[in-house]
């Protein structure tokens, strides 16, 4: 099967790759662009470990085909920190020990950053439901939720 040439923007950089029409955006990010921060936990859109933002919309990269990225912008975990400066969410996740193994962390950070951009003042319940598509098996979510609520409060204060 012949491959398709895809031009897209990932974390602000213009990139291109050749992909088989059957390959997912997640495959292309990981295998063709070496952006392995997005993880495959299920391949069926159930676990959220591959969460990325596609033209501003939070999606599971395993449910998007690579060819669909043509002409769009993709934001992944690798683009959250600016240079050596971590995003407040990243700092709080480390401080609160909001990760144990860390495999779900990239997806949860991408999803949460997207939430706070839409709703800077979410309730605990809103955070829990927003993250209902991001599975974590280690933490019981407690420290994740605390880290997010504290980050949101701090970011609101910082304006």
């Amino acid at each position, binding site marked *: 099967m012949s491959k398709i040439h895809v031009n897209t923007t990932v974390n602000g950089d213009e990139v291109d790759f050749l992909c*088989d029409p*059957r*390959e997912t955006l997640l*495959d292309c990010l*990981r295998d063709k662009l070496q*952006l*392995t*921060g*997005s*993880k*495959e*936990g*299920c*391949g*069926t859109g*159930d*676990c959220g*470990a591959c969460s990325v933002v596609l033209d501003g919309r939070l999606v599971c990269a395993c449910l998007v085909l690579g060819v669909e990225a043509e002409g769009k912008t993709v934001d*992944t*975990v*690798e683009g*959250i*920190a600016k240079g050596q400066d*971590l995003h407040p*969410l*990243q700092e709080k*996740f*480390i*401080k*609160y*020990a909001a*990760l*144990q*193994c*860390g*495999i*779900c*962390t*990239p997806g949860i*950070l991408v999803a949460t950053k997207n939430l706070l951009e839409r709703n800077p003042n979410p309730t605990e*319940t809103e*955070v*829990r*439901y927003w*993250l*209902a598509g*991001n*599975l*974590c*098996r*280690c*933490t*019981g*979510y*407690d*420290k*994740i*939720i*605390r880290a997010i609520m504290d980050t949101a409060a701090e970011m609101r204060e910082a304006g």
Partner: protein
Amino acid sequence: MALDDTKTKDFKFVGTRPERPDGVDKVTGRAKFGADMTAPGMLHGAILRSPHAHARILSIDTSKAEALKGVKAVVTRADFSTNPTFGPGLTGEPWNVLENVMAGEKALYDGHAVAAVAATSALIARDALKLIDVTYEVLDHVTDVDKAMAEGAPVIREGAADKSVPAGMHPNVVRYHDSGHGDVEAGFAEADLVLENSFKTEATHQGYIEPHACLGSLGNDGKGELWCTTQGHWYAQKMCAALLGLETSQLRVTASEIGGGFGGKTTVFIEPVALALSRKANKPVKIVMSRSEVFRATGPTASTSMDIKIGMKKDGTITAASGVFRLQGGAFPGAPCEFTAMCAFAPYALENVHQIGYDVMSNRPKQAAYRAPGSPMAAFAVESVIDDLCKELGLDPIDVRLKNASHKGTKASFGPRFDDIGLVETLEAAKAHEHYNTPLKEGQGRGISCGFWFNHGGETAVSLALSEDGTAQISVGTPDIGGSRASMALMAAEELGIPYEHIRCTVADTATLGYNEISHGSRVTYASGLATIKAAKDAVNKLCKRAAQKWGIPEDAVKWEDGCAVPSGANAGDFDPLPLAKITANMGATGGPIVGHFEATPEGAGVSFATHIVDAEVDHETGKTKIVRYTVVQDAGKAIHPTYVEGQFQGGAAQGIGWALNEEYIYGDDGRLQNAGFLDYRIPLASDLPMIDTVIVEVANPGHPYGVRGVGETSICPPLAAIANAVSAAAGVRMRELPMSPPRIVAALKAAQDG
């Protein structure tokens, strides 16, 4: 193992909550997990799996797959060692692992590997699987533990039973455990109330979010490299070498960052297959499992069928207890029936106790360890009966547990006498907790349970090397499954007297250290921690020796204080303290590199107990359950990094909530797994759970220099029971089968209504 050089107070670093060393890597996407590694010239592997629960493999024709463009190798059982250590049966674990990794004469469960392909792309490898032609003769199958033991059940494998099994049992019963003390019949006769009931739990999967993944490279010279996500890379080295007929030391294994294990990554599945493909293709081969492969062919824990009988006096004294525990562990021996039996009554000081365990084979995947293997199910059954006894006799559930609690000197239900343990302290903390004293709302139920786990020591080797600038690097051999590198650095900082930030802890590969047992049995902070402390002490002794040389005084006239060598007393001489960095700065000229070592098999792990409190609500119309409040109280011995201890408590509770309420392996009549994905196998979501409160109790373990007890596993022992007690109270009907999913609750309510 009592230690002479223990330290249980005045810690400077231990007990603080610094940031973990791998934090930045893990929040930026830089951390390399199993599937994140590549190699030049790498091929992609894929595995063909049996669609049948039980079938004889009559033939495998791989010719069409081999002819597909891009396919570089196809392997079947014939490509593995024909003589792994031992043969079928209990002592032949390498043989069992081989049989599981690649089927021999029979496919034994839905998902059992039968062949594998390596190709230039993952898509071609997957396409090639469809071209492999396997002819099966489908056989009768059995997946339920009680049915697998019954007369007429299909035999999974003749001759697998060991000598412990009584005569006359079905060949699927492969191990038997019988222990206890006293006279249970006499004990039941003394009781004012005796209750007897049966319980069942379904198999649950460890459910780590990272599927198994590896990258193997092996030449025909027998030298190889393996990168994989594992809880134990020395075990992977040993097992892969056995299955491929290699010399162990010729295979170097590096553990990747691990995306969760919980016991499920304590063995090998795809690693020997990748190496076999690599040897045949003479190129590196990467294999990554799909989620459905993870569910069908790895883990899960055992399912159980249990009978419990307990007698109690009106004052709450338990007079006798007995239990029968039947565990189905898939198509191989190894279900942890002895752990289930031995843990069942461990929290209680009983004069009369008797427990029997059966390890039963069925047509399911080979069970793997899951967080305190076997213990949570036993607690579910036992603590449910205790709860009923308390209710019928009008007694407080914590008071009854306190009245019967095991303590130092108690002869445990499984034999030995307990040393210092903290069960009473967890019960007292639970009783005093605001949660326990807060009234329930209408429609809510509260449940209490205790839980017990042995904990483990195991073979351990640690090396601690000092750098010229006065910093330290620790090499440990236990993969970090929950933040253990931070704990190791804290313990080393305590001994060396240098800041936590000046220490880097690395999980070393198999070529770097002596054998390290798997990260299992809650052993890492205990055993690697003990070894880190001892290795640091070894380095400190060497530092003191250099100071003694410099000062020209005897070695024993120097001691170590706050990161400096100092004269041990007035008679030793008058010298200024010599800081660590001053000694290491010119160590090359004063005797060479300074490295501390420790290699041993520590045996003082120290058992651990927990008490959990749960409040639950049940929707009587739909059967939906909600956990409204949860508190974990557990003895950690000494919390090295309290935040990560809390994390273990919360994680165990959350997994227990999933096990209790939703998670289960569902098999159809055809013996095929019907819910091999996270949509249908529902683990707890953020929106399902409340905050999980924690109380860390610290009753020092005499077997660790700082009193550490492992904390990872005990946290999953009480939840099934505590939740069952809460849900049963809220529903008004006793739930004796897990999971307590909405259909089961609705059925139980209906049955109660119908009388």
